[in-house]
């Protein structure tokens, strides 16, 4: 076989080119000015509105801060942690990123606390429960953008069809009314139990209402308690009495395909009023206080902007975070997304909105629960056990005991 000189040279060039490709790294041009990159997510579902807000906010900020430029990128919600942790590990993370409290705990080591980066005035203005939600070991981890509340929301049309005139306030009310709804073919409560659903919106509020906590005082397992068993038994009793939508216990389908959207469920504490109103009709959405077991308590998330330790311009990033989360600046963002202000001095945003205005009243009383690095991993072992109990495969006590055993090596770390 004859091989021409050209072929040999071509092979050599190909090898060299591939090698060069392997070793090529992303260089950074030095611009002389401070540059901030922001990673955001579709908090405002409408892409154009979301982009327009950030474009306008950045333009206004850059006008006031001539030495700072800001770039942003909107990532999808799906797999956001994979993208972020890969970027951080590779040293390519953003300066500023939108995180919720569970993430603040998980990324704790990668976040630059804002104790000295956010003005004292702003820190003082934060709602106390919001400030608690972004504070870990005494450090303020991020600048809160928004907050939410998940009170009880009931479908008045379902109550009417079932012939029920009274709305539930306590667990006892739920247990008493559930058979009436079941007899008419309705589920009393929505409880999505598949693995994709965060326990923050499902089991934890019930646990808190029972007087329990996820972790004990020493940071060990706290859900494996009398209160935990009481909370899970409340739910399994409802499941047995067909008071929970059976489909939602096992599968995760788009909202429009769920029983809650189809008007087959009386109440929910894990859907926002803005989610259910288009399906139920605004006139049928009834906002009620969170259910009361031992106490009445609801979950409310906090969205925040955190400065990463890898940032080359942390002060500039924090300056932008403070600007973007200011009461007047963030207002159109909050109203477009249907969220609430994290600041105590802000006037009610939804005074003219009978639904969101009602939900807004519960914002100061919500909680995100305890923040711990292991919170997501703990959910990973607890969630399937709760699901197993709800499907009748395990007793509540056994499910919590097994989850506690599986959680032990996670908490040891």
């Amino acid at each position, binding site marked *: 076989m004859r091989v021409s000189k050209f072929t040999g040279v071509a092979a*050599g060039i190909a090898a060299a080119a591939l090698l060069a490709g392997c070793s090529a790294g992303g260089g950074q041009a030095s611009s002389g000015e401070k540059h901030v990159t922001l990673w955001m997510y579709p908090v405002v579902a409408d892409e154009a509105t979301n982009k327009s807000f950030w474009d306008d906010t950045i333009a206004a900020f850059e006008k006031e801060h001539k030495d700072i430029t800001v770039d942003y990128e909107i990532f999808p919600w799906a797999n956001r942690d994979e993208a972020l942790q890969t970027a951080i590990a590779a040293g390519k993370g953003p300066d500023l990123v939108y995180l919720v409290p569970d993430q603040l705990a998980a990324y704790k080591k990668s976040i630059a606390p804002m104790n000295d980066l956010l003005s004292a005035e702003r820190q003082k203005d934060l709602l106390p429960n919001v400030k608690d939600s972004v504070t870990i070991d005494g450090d303020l981890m991020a600048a809160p953008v928004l907050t939410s509340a998940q009170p009880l929301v009931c479908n008045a049309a379902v109550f009417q069809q079932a012939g029920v005139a009274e709305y539930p306030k306590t667990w006892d009310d739920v247990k008493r009314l559930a058979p009436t709804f079941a007899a008419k073919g309705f589920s009393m409560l929505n409880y999505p139990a598949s693995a994709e659903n965060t326990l923050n919106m499902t089991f934890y509020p019930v646990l808190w209402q029972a007087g329990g906590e996820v972790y004990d005082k020493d940071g060990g397992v706290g859900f494996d308690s009398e209160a935990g068993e009481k909370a899970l038994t409340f739910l399994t009793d409802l499941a047995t009495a067909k008071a929970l939508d059976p489909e939602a216990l096992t599968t995760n389908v788009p909202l429009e395909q769920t029983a809650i959207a189809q008007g087959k469920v009386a109440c929910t504490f894990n859907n926002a009023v803005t989610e259910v109103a288009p399906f139920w009709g605004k006139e049928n959405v009834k906002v009620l206080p969170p259910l009361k077991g031992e106490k009445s308590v609801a979950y409310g998330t906090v969205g925040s902007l955190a400065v990463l330790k890898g940032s080359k311009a942390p002060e500039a990033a924090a300056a932008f975070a403070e600007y973007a989360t200011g009461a007047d600046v963030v207002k159109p963002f909050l109203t477009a997304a249907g969220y609430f202000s994290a600041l105590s001095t802000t006037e009610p945003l939804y005074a003219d909105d009978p639904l969101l205005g009602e939900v807004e009243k519960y914002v100061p009383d919500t909680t995100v629960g305890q923040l711990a690095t292991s919170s997501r991993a703990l959910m990973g072992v607890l969630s399937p056990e709760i699901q197993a109990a709800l499907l009748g495969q395990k007793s509540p006590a056994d499910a919590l005991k097994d989850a506690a055993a599986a959680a032990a090596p996670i908490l040891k770390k």
Partner: protein
Amino acid sequence: MTTATTGKRPLGAVGRVLARREARVALLFVLPAFLLFLAFRFGPSIAGVALSLFDYDITGEIAWRGLDHFQRLVADPLFWRAMGTTVVYTVFAVPISLVLSTVMALGVRRAFRGSRFFRSIFFLPVITSLVLAGSIFVWIFSANGPWSALMSPLGLGGSWLGSTVLVIPAIIVVGVWSRFGYGMMILIAAMQDVPRELEEAALMDGANAWQRFRSIILPHLRPTFFFLAVIETTAAFQVFDVIYVMTQGGPANASYSLVYLLYDQGFKYFDYGYAAAVGVALFAMTLVVALVQRLVIGKQR
């Protein structure tokens, strides 16, 4: 006595090969692939094994843990559950896929009107995105989907993905659907090598279709079956995408596979060391099974 020398040392086997210009050029062509293999396959594999002995943090902090992760693995009920799910999936999916691949290959191996069309149709699932197909299968297996309607007379109606018993059969159906076309194509190629005159002679001797397949075609296919068994088993042990799209490991961990455990530990909980330990265990298990397959199928070649 003097010894005459030529001034050149005798060449070894490698040297003799390298002395040929064609071989040197061939090596140059192989070099990029070899380097890429080292960089992206071999390197990460070694790094993965090393990582299983450490705790690694995304901030770059690293701490020696020795065999701690493996001790945790042995005591972790979730690992054993995921192992059980993975083994059950593999034990059913691989043989079913091989049988289906063989049946389909026998059906379309000869050229007939429409044979190319059917080959393409059967191969289509292999090149179809499982993320897309999975979404459709979620509906198919839902309580209101066609599969439930089809299975209702057998008392197996309702959502298969919502059942802790039926979810694995559902995943197997989708897994086999997505893989059998690949095996079919490989087998069709192998069947082309079976001498036609042998089959014709057997036909003239009165052998029926089963006898011709068993005595003539099957012996020719043994090396191919070995190859497919290893490939399919490796793929089955690594089942993830179907589960990720369709069940997220549920309900109640009933479809939680080893790779899903690895994914959760690494990418959801940032426990890279433990995730790497799961990967090492998976690699060891796959290697053992491949060696057993080599002993069982490969020996009979």
